[in-house]
């Protein structure tokens, strides 16, 4: 029984990490939009390429934040959560 419980914990942690990274879609679309618009702007006004590029990089980095939240959660689920949860299980079972 204990093996099954630990197996469920590990499997669900991995599944949760995978599901958390679905959030990567959002920043991908957002950054793609930002870069597309920046390319358009540079095409229209090549002389302001420098400022457009720096602004775009700033915007991209800020748009990335939600994806990074998901990444942090996924990393916590993979590296931190399993051992904590297994410990919790062991202490509740009293072993």
């Amino acid at each position, binding site marked *: 029984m204990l093996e099954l419980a630990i197996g469920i914990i590990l499997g669900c942690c991995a599944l949760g990490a995978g599901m958390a990274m679905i959030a990567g879609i959002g920043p991908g679309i957002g950054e793609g939009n930002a870069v597309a618009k920046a390319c358009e702007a540079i095409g229209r006004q090549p002389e302001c390429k420098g400022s457009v590029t720096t602004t775009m*990089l*700033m915007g991209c*980095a*800020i748009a990335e934040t939600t994806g*990074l*939240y998901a*990444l*942090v959660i996924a*990393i916590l689920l993979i590296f931190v959560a399993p051992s904590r949860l297994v410990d919790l299980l062991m202490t509740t079972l009293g072993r």
Partner: protein
Amino acid sequence: MKDRSRSFVFVDILLILTMILPVVAGIVIKILTTPASEGIAIAGAQIYFTIPMPFQDLPITESQVNSLLVMISITGLCLYLTHGIRAHVNTKRQLLAEWIVEKVDGMVGENMGEYFSGFGPFVAAILALSALSSLLALFGLYAPTSDINVVAGWAILVFILITYYKCKAGPWQYVKSFGEPVKLLAPLNIISEVATPISMAFRHYGNVLSGAVISVLLASGLQGLSSMVFGALPGVLGEIPFFRVGIPAVLSIYFDVFSGCLQAYIFAMLTMLYVSSGFPQDEYEKRKLKRMRKKIKAQH
């Protein structure tokens, strides 16, 4: 250039050593403390030792030691660049130092306005510390920026600065600013205020850490591949991971060099934007005028 005295050159060499020796010391500490048998693993910062404290033990970790080494290195760099500085430019290093100062001052003036013109050194310090901490990964050391504690410390520092400048027009003005534009939105405003340092810390640390994790995954994958392909070779030849030579460096250019420098730039930029946008210019000037009037009235 030939009029340099012997003591000048001696100090120069000392300063160059202050720049290089911390990195060497970091590598030596890393080699001495890493267990030999350990393969490739994704691990956090190593804890060297813990200092017993009244409430909670204080662990001295790799990230703390490495960031201190980076600070010593930056101090050496600054002293080296400004050593033998003169009114008229005659050395390359003085040109470089002046270029750095001018660039940072220009950036601060462009983004923060006139009131914050003294912010250059702070912004430059954040830029240099963050960028060089991330670049430390190039030497195979643990980058302090991939530890959330380090970056969260910087973010809290920036948050204190933001709050300080928001309070410049009086504490009551600061409290009232949460009720803008409607008083109903106050809880949301408080949440967004608290989210500022959290998002700053997570953005920087997540970017560097994701790069480190992907690099380690690639390295372990290449090790497995090379042991599969060359495993049949006799003796030591079969154990050398040939694919791990050179290929991870391509990723390192993106994740360590480009991403690290970009995140440093973004952290400094956000610091400037948050601090300058949080500062209530009009209210501050009104308050100043009021105080001056009161003073003049009191004098008469």
